[in-house]
């Protein structure tokens, strides 16, 4: 029981932290609250599905293709929609939800509401202290941790990462120092698309793929990002793992708990915003990031 909780918690936490970190990056750098973020995750899952099941490409190739196409789509979305209205925060929120609904409806139109599945990277399972753990789950956990450290490396050790953080800290000064802010924002959007794509590809064989799969992660990602402090990357990773474990516990222990998944995360979010609006990690409101 406890072991299952730990494995599931790590799995959910890894996936949510991949999504949350992309969301948080875009919010921190480009100041866009992109509610369509998990819709990109859904697109990547469907692209991987098309490539493997319909076109019959090998899994690794189709995964890479799906990630790249998702990232390009995210950048196109930024150029076409967000770039014009990024000064008006309400308009940005509304447009992003509209994009999410648009993607959902287009996918519903093409694929209808059936549940589908992507083949796993590695099959089989092993027994750890008496419970069965699929290799795919271990692979997913390892891959998400690897990706997270990759993002950390990109942000702290490379020149591009430093430019990106400079934009997040102060737009005008970054612009004055010769950083092309608009381009950085677009690339950030692309990176968040890549992260969403990775999450989709490694998780798509564990969860089912359907045109409504973006809503539940969206709620949890929002809660995680707020819990960790909006714009703080470290905070969102920690909060994503906390919520992942909370979700695993609730679905395991309470009967009918799967209805409450979203409600619990959102209550956590509302509570955090009311009691401690700066989030877990004490990031000063809208000032410091990472």
């Amino acid at each position: 029981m406890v072991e299952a909780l730990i494995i599931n918690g790590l799995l959910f936490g890894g996936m949510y932290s991949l999504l949350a970190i992309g969301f948080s990056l875009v919010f921190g750098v480009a100041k866009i609250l992109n509610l369509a973020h998990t819709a990109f995750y859904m697109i990547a899952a469907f692209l991987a599905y098309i490539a493997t099941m319909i076109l019959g490409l090998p899994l690794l190739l189709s995964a890479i293709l799906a990630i790249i196409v998702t990232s390009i789509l995210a950048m196109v979305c930024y150029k076409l929609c967000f770039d014009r209205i990024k000064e008006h925060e309400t308009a940005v929120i509304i447009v992003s939800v509209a994009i999410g609904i648009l993607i959902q409806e287009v996918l519903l139109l093409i694929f209808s509401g059936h549940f589908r599945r992507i083949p796993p990277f590695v099959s089989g399972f092993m027994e750890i202290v008496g419970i069965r753990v699929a290799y795919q789950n271990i692979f997913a956990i390892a891959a998400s941790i690897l990706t997270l450290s990759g993002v950390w490396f990109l942000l702290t050790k490379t020149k591009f990462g430093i430019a990106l953080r400079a934009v997040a800290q102060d737009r005008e000064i970054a612009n004055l120092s010769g950083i092309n802010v608009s381009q950085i924002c677009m690339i950030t959007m692309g990176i968040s698309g890549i992260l969403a794509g990775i999450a989709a590809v490694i998780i798509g064989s564990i969860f089912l793929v359907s045109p409504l799969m973006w809503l539940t992660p969206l709620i949890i990602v929002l809660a995680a990002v707020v819990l960790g402090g909006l714009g703080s990357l470290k905070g969102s990773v920690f909060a994503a793992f906390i919520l992942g474990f909370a979700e695993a516990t609730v679905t395991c222990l309470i009967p009918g708990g799967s209805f409450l998944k979203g409600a619990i995360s959102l209550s956590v979010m509302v509570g955090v915003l009311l009691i401690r609006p700066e989030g877990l990690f004490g990031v000063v409101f809208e000032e410091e990031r990472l």
Partner: protein
Amino acid sequence: MTYYILRIYREFLNEIVAIPGRLIAFVFIIFLFLFPLIMMESFIIRIFILSAIFAIYAASWDILAGFTGQVNLGHALCFGVAAYTAGLLNLRVGLPPWATIPAGAIVAVIMGLIAGIPALRLRGFYLSLVTLSFPIILSGLIFLFPDFTGGELGIYGIDTLSGSRILDYYILVLAMLCSVFVMYKFTDVQSKIIRVGVILHAIREDEITARACGIDTSKYKMLAFAISGFFAGIAGGFYAHFLRIAGPSTLELMVSFQAILWTIFGGIATIYGAVAGVYILYPLIEMISLNKVGEQIRFILFALILILVLLFMPEGLIVWIRDKIEQICPRCKIVNVTLRRYCRACRAPLHLERKK
């Protein structure tokens, strides 16, 4: 006697016919009242009844988001709660519609105030996120207690409003006109008696300055949440009694977003914009979804319209038209038809030509 008739006629000419916006509104109201005489088809009447309900609902969102600047992404909370309250009171207690709808509205006010408490501390993104989450939390609870709330199916078999569809139509048109008139007057910026409209505008533009001017911004924000919740509740109650069902679909994200679409399409921060947006878009989308292909693409169309309007016409269609046909006199601030060359009251030239 003739004097009074003449006088009313004069006032009518000066206050309604001379101002194109009001003339259009007047013609529209006459059209609404005569509509069932021209078109007896019950499907179309049904669309117009729903338009009237949604007009109240969209206008109530406009008070909160347009005037006060508290962008509420979960306005379906008030709508759905009122629909459920009206339905439950009607089915379990047996109250008639004229009692359940106000009761639902009062519960919606309470919910609006609960949603409004975070508004005192949060703004911008954060407020939108919190309000977005309330309907989702509530629908989770509804699924958790299916015995009381009916679960996925909702509660059905609620009493109808009056029994006949034509009577329903007139009740709703009257209710819509009254609510919209009250909301319009309540937020009227030029009013000398009710200052709420100006104050709400001030809060939206700059809350800190408004507070520095001695306005109790918390009080007025709560007032906006309460009024908006009340009218959304009225709309929700009518919705439950008209469709005879109150289900979890009244709490969906789409319900919240439809209000936003209609209001932004018509013109934000003008009550009439929201009403016009509903009366243009709702029948249009319903007509499109009559055939098979249209039904599948209705939400795609919906999202596309929303994105395009926000990108290219952020002030809204009705405001755009109004600015084309009305011209405010630069001297005496009276509204004139753009076609006039001189102001109808003070003869000041309306269009200042550039000297060559």
